[in-house]
């Protein structure tokens, strides 16, 4: 079902973008942050995280740059572009509308 896949993609994209609002992070940091923030509820599969990062970079929403990690290792850092920031707003807004529409149906007896 392509629609559902889009939904999932969209959600993952939004989550990744959101992760980067706090500043540049590398892929491992992103996956950790997502895990911790959701109280381990969401474990983004690394198998989907990295393709998502490359997809977002291609769309111009994030930019990659090599830098040094806290441990002093070379790592690829991702940073939100202005277009990415705008995209995040769009995604958040769209998710809010979705939840608003779905909640009364799902949560009432």
């Amino acid at each position: 079902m392509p629609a559902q896949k889009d939904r999932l993609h969209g959600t993952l994209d939004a989550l990744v973008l959101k992760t980067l609002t706090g500043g540049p992070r590398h892929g491992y940091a992103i996956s950790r942050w997502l895990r911790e923030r959701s109280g381990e509820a969401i474990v983004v599969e690394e198998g989907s995280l990295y393709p998502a990062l490359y997809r977002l970079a291609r769309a111009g929403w994030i930019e990659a740059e090599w830098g040094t990690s806290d441990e002093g290792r070379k790592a690829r850092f991702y940073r939100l572009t202005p277009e990415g920031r705008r995209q995040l707003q769009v995604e958040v807004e769209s998710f809010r509308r979705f939840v608003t529409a779905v909640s009364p149906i799902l949560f009432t007896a």
Partner: protein
Amino acid sequence: MARKRFHEQLRGLIWKAPVTEEVDAELRFHLEMVTRELVEGGMAPEAARAEALRRFGDVESVSKECQQLGRAEQREKRRAAWLSELLQDLTYALRQLRRAPGFTLTAVLTLALGIGATTAIFSAVHSVVLRPFPWASPERVMMVQETFRGEPADMSVGNYVDLKAVSTTFRHLAAQEFTNVSLQEGDTPERLSAGRVTHDFFSVFGVRPQLGRTFLPEEDAPGASSVVVLGHGLWTRRFGADPSLVGRSVRIDGASHTVVGVMPRGFDPTESGEELWVPIAFTPTQRAEHDEHYLTVVGLLAEGRARAQAHAELEPVMRELSVRYPRANPDRGISVRPLAEVIVGDWNEQLLVTLGAVGLVLLIACANVANLLLARGAARARELAIRAALGAGRMRIVRQLLTESLLLGLLGAAAGILFAWAGIQVLLASAPEGIPRLDETRIDGAVLLFALGAALLASLVSGLAPALRAARSDVESVLRQGARGLSQGRDSLRAGLIAGEVALAFTLLVGAGLLVRTALHLSHVPPGFQPEGLVIAQVGLPMARYESAEQVTRTFERVLEGLEGAPGVSSAALSSQVPLGPGGGSNGLLPEGRPETPDQLINSVRRVVSTRYFETLGIALKEGRRFEARDAAGAPPVMIVSEELAARAFPGEGALGRRINCCEAPPNYAKEVVGIVGNVRTRGPMSDPGPEFYLPLRQAPAKSWDWIDRTMTLVVRRSGSTADAITAMRTAVREVDSTLPLSGITTLEDALRASTAASRFRTLLLAVLGIVGLLLAAVGIYGVVAYFVGLRTREIGVRMALGARPMDVLRMLAWQGLRPVLAGLVLGGLGAAWAARLLQASLRGVGPADPVALAAAMALLACVALVATLAPARRALRVDPSQVLGEG
């Protein structure tokens, strides 16, 4: 912000780190981090590593997916960067050009001149030579001719019928006879060019009629009903483009013909101006006749067959015919050539030579623009050095400068197309008649493409060297010394450009000089007759009413009688052909005493003339007598020969009183030479006089009336105005037969002018190109010398302050300016030799290595170069030394 991103894109471009490595490094880092986290949580390193891999899933396929996405991104970025750079270069170039309007205007106009001239001539070449003919398969349409001693000739009916019978390489093989017919519709009869054609003539070209149909197979048989196909021109001109004309009948040569079809506009496949076509019907006698060669044969090769195959098939047949009919077909071979090639003929080469000449002008223009760009590059050295210091790569600067010259080239092309359009109008208005398809010249897609190509070439040629030079300059020294430090004194690139320009201009001028000398020569060539005051017109007698030879002779004599003594006429004559007029015919002549073998025959132009022909045309009698009233039918047969024929028939002996066999069976076979007349240049001053002989009108062989279609040319030396003479001719003809039209009325002075029009046109064209080239070269020399002088102003000031005499300084500067000019002249000598070889076929009365043309071109260039050198040099002498020195 945008600048920074641009910078990053640029770096990404240069770096281009392999995506594979990036992805691998990134994933490796991730796995190591997870492993370390697990180890810190208390796992053994080995197990932690395995667990990290397990959690990650299929590393291989994730890596592959990421690489694909990454590569796609890189491609897109590169494209975007390229586009944005181009846009940046363009806006920058535009700004630069706007900042220097004088430079821009000069460069654009120079290029426009070069591109415009080249494009205009190319459009003509395209129209005449390159554009395919409007036939279904132009490449398969062939002209099939007999050859007589290697020269292509018309074909006899017998040969045509025999060749057609065996040929399988041709899908259609059709014959055409050019003829003239009288169209009797309305009050004024009209004489028209017509084609008598076999029914499949139209199939050869695959052109369908606009209305109705073409001929049916049974319609070119003897005794078939009379039908006619009209040309579009005649249909609109005489019949008001009436579509209901098809099926109606019109009167042609006194007989009623049913119009079965109308051909579309522009259908004139043999470029001979036929206005209608009637079927040709060969009688059994004609089909067996091999000696009368008058058919034009065209064929459509069968699918997949080549010209060489057709030739190989027909050649042995022709050889056999030559053996079977030795008298009729001596020394005959076969020639198969694409019809398009036959029609375009010499024009192909002539136009290409002209195109080459305009190409030279374009190159001169390019050299000038290159010089301008060099001067500008030097002036901008500082700006470029700063850009280089700021990190712009060398290629980047070259690209930037090339973009600028490309922009110049495009602007030049735009203006050049306007020039070309104007040039085409002038070309069409001034071009001589008779260049096939020239009137269809226009600016179309192919021509625009050519202009664009010329512009690109011009940009590249003129921009590359200056751009490379500017990018190569030593950044540091420029920044330290400023622009002045660059190219002090000598500058071999500029000198080289000047030498090249001079060489090109010299080539052009020598070419033009040779053609001008030819034109001068031609204007002095004696034509062999006195064209002033001669008026000519053709009269043709329709076979239907004038069948017997006696009838034809008698009628022409009556016309002549009516003319003699008419007001406005001082002398009148009749001839089957006059110089520069239509008609013709030749026979193989056998001087008496020579063995009767084909190689002894002298092919000689035949003229059937009235008694006063030589007096009327002013052809000199060298020996013997002219024709007289006693040279009548039944009297001893006589002929008059040209000096050329006399010399060939009886070399070293007198021809007078000797006998020559020709044209008829005995007893009239041998004819006595009673007079020798001067040679005549029948086809105009470009042609050499060939052997010619004259027969008296009343002794014309009966068959000859069929050969010349019962058509004679009336020639009148006027005593009053040309109009009076024409009126007298009309009256004389009308009084004999009021249905006979006069056609081809002209004066021989006009005809003479027309015969050299094409040659004069080319001369004018090349002369104009030579002058444009000369002017451009002068501008170039002036610019460079002025530049040198400018660079050396300081040095000149110092020299003068130290006591140098002005003459010394002037000599020094002149030498510097003239040295490349001299080098150019030497180089140009090679170019001139090449140009002369190309033009050789067009030259008359002047050798390709004509010292006058060479000296004139050299002197002209040297003068122009001297003026262009001295003018800026003299200005330098007015420099005030104290001021120059104070400046430093």
